[in-house]
């Protein structure tokens, strides 16, 4: 039975459970000469029966799907000669994939050894059997539990309270998903990073000055060792983020100040949404813009000024990526600082104005100092954003891991390397792939600290004026 068909059947059975549960409640109520008062509305009796039909059967389906792949693989491979699988079972995945492809008809069946053909037949049998068994178990489980609930239905049975419990439990699970996601991130990144650090020492990784992750296939190739010193990546990331903040913080902050302190309501209504459009543009569009327009422009400008006599000028540059990223972050900084500036009590401004300050003096000497913690928080958030930004740097900053502080040279960043190492097919045991996870771990820790610090500062600051 197909999974979709099974789900449809489960739905139908659940509907049926609802009908019989509700029907039993109604029947109980109208039995006897005088109508009996039910504890809950008939709907709740039906709903409870239906819930206890759907939840167990879906749980069975989920558990089955999680475990059946591994079990089937084991059962199929058990019938194969040991020498095919290799002494330590190192060819297991390869052989099993071949069997799967044979069963799916991707590989011709001619000229395949007999044991593989037999295994293919086994696989098909087991899969069919497993699907039917899953359907049977799921439906039986659902109907059985629903029946138990149905039997307990009585006029004084508190169906509404039970349904509420299930409802609350479901809501709780949904909000727990956020925690699960975090755990998932930490687990996946940490485990693969640990595997990486068993190949490369963490000190070499964090303080090494050379990054060339290409591992040669043959021992006699150039650069066969592969070196994983991430300092060039960190430096590149910091350069670009610094340029971006250099653009975004003054512009964002000043636009926020102007819009909240000087601008008329009309101007604010027009300009603010327009600036927020900048935040809604996908980063891949910024990347395209940076690579197509800004980077060549900067290179041409550099060449025209004759800067190439003193420094390397490359067609992909940190400056181009940084500038465009800065533009992307402007609305981010401005909307965060806007909130912060608006939270400064009006009485502070009025006091300063009454003493005869000009408006800019009020802003510079009263509003900004009062809002400083919040502004710092928003700058930190913007920095975390700049460090984690990927597409702009992938498209405009280049791949070359140069150890340079020259903003006109091509640099590479942590995010660029994560993406380039992981795009395409990769095997999960080479240090090259695992390096991406180690970089991810560094990125995650750094952004987490920045975010935590920023949110903490902003919260503390809010409390100050509330």
């Amino acid at each position, binding site marked *: 039975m197909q999974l979709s068909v099974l789900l449809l059947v489960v739905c139908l059975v659940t509907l049926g459970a609802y009908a019989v549960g509700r029907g039993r409640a109604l029947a109980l109520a109208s039995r006897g000469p005088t109508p009996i008062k039910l504890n809950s509305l008939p709907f709740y009796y039906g709903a409870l029966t239906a819930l206890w039909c759907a939840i167990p059967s879906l749980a069975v389906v989920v558990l089955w799907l999680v475990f059946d792949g591994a079990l089937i693989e084991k059962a199929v491979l058990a019938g194969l000669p040991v020498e095919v699988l290799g002494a330590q079972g190192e060819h297991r995945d390869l052989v099993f994939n071949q069997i799967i492809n044979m069963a799916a008809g991707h590989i011709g069946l001619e000229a395949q050894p007999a044991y593989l053909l037999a295994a293919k037949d086994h696989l098909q049998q087991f899969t069919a059997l497993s699907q039917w068994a899953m359907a049977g178990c799921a439906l039986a489980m659902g109907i059985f539990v629903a029946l138990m609930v149905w039997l307990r239905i009585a006029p004084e049975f508190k169906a509404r309270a039970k349904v*509420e419990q299930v409802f609350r439990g479901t*809501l709780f699970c*949904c*909000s727990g998903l*956020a*925690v699960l*996601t975090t755990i998932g*991130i930490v687990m*996946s*990144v940490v*485990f*693969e990073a640990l595997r990486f650090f068993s190949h490369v020492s963490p000190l070499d990784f964090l303080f090494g000055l050379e990054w060339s992750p290409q591992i040669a296939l043959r021992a006699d190739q150039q650069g066969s060792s592969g070196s994983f010193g991430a300092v060039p990546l960190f430096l590149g990331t910091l350069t670009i983020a610094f340029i971006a903040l250099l653009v975004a913080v003054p*512009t*964002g*902050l*000043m*636009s926020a100040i*102007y819009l909240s302190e*000087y601008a008329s309501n009309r101007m604010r209504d027009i*300009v603010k949404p*327009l*600036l927020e*459009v*900048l935040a809604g*543009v*996908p*980063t*891949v*569009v910024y*990347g*395209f813009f940076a690579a*197509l*327009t800004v980077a060549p422009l900067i290179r041409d400008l550099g060449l025209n000024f004759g800067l190439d006599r003193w420094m390397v000028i490359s067609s992909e540059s940190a400056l181009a990526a940084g500038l465009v990223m800065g*533009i992307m972050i*402007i609305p981010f900084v*401005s909307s965060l600082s806007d909130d912060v500036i608006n939270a400064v009590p009006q009485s502070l401004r009025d006091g300063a104005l009454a003493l*005869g300050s*000009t408006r*800019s*003096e009020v*802003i*510079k000497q009263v509003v900004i100092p009062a809002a400083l913690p919040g502004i710092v928080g928003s700058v930190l*958030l913007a920095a*975390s954003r700049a*460090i*984690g930004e*990927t*597409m702009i740097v992938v498209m405009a900053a280049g791949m070359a891991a140069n150890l340079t502080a020259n903003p006109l040279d091509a640099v590479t960043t942590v*995010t660029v390397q*994560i*993406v380039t190492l*992981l795009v395409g097919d990769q095997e*999960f045991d080479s240090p090259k792939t695992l390096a*991406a*996870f180690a970089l991810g771990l560094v*990125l995650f820790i750094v*952004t*987490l600290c920045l*975010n935590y610090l920023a*949110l903490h500062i902003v919260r503390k600051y809010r409390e100050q004026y509330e």
Partner: protein
Amino acid sequence: MVQSSLAKRYRSEKGFRAFGILSIAVGLVALSCLFVGIIGSGIGGFTQTKVRLELDLSVELLGITDTHNAEQIKDADYQPVVREALALRFPQVEGRSDKRLLNAIMSVGAGYEVQALMRKHPEWLGTKQTIWLTADDDVDVYYKSRKGKVLGDRLKEQQIGWIEELIAKGDMERKFNVAFFMSGDSAEPELAGILGTLLGSIFTLSITLSLSFPIGVAAAIYLEEYAPRNKFTDFIEVNINNLAAVPSVIFGLLGLAIFINLFHLPRSIPLVGGLVLTLITLPTIIISSRVAIKSVPPSIREAALGIGASKMQTILHHVLPLALPGMLTGAIIGMAHALGETAPLLMIGMVAFVMDIPDSIHSAATVLPVQIFLWSDSPERAFVERTSAAIMVLLMFLICMNTLAVVLRKRLERRW
């Protein structure tokens, strides 16, 4: 003393204001540069240079032996017909290499275009038809740039001569680029289209929406209405706030490690993409849904509870309907973000070169922003135009979604 410093203070006041206006101007100029640049280079992508040729659809040229055999007509090779038509159009062209150059004027897909037309009009067999066929991408670039800076360096001198002759006779024109909207990806810019990736995006986003909206709303309800004030609730809240600011590449790593490496789901399918995007948009949706629930005044809850409604009834019958517009607005904005998300999808293999139009959440697909990334990497100059055109389509969708969100908020929002 005050008087003497006044002029200086007013000057600095003016300077400060000018700085504010300047920074707003920087933002707006950058925005307009971005849009003008993209539209300027993308508008040409919606048209395609076509060549009018008189095709001789004779039986001999097509190698069809049985005129009643529909299969044979369908599967015949139509490339020679195009070549013959070009040779007839330019009888002066002699020699193998010149002929090859002449044939290079037309797209390699021109034969398939004729084939598709013949499937629709089998009665054309044995007749002569005058049809507009797609030109090669280099010709396209040349024709579109003819009036300004000519970009014809990939064409030979003879080819330019032939093209100018075609233009002079009115046999070369720009037509609406149907292929751009009706086909999948292709290595040839003139044949490449966005239909496949659009469908990929739609499949991916429908997974994302159908998972993240209910889960996000449920989590928001729990946190706002049920959660006790304790350490664990605080922990969940801190988690959600942090997840909202985690870089999206990290979610790509998660997707790769969990969905592909652990659960062995196939790469490049919208299902996995949708799951990853769900995790990315979930924090945003939870946060905006919480704001919406918070804005429903407590008096409504108290009134419902007061007349005997249970907590669940209060929430489902009163709080949720009132908070729904705000939640929907948040969900649409979250979806707009998901539509533009690229980096995590690169890592779960949605960068594959997919020519086929995906037909389900299990078939290999890419999404629109990834397609933009792929095209922007292509060396062919005609792809620059296509990339910008695809960006325009993407921005159109985003603008529509955001406008919808704003309208929804204006229409349905209630002030208490």
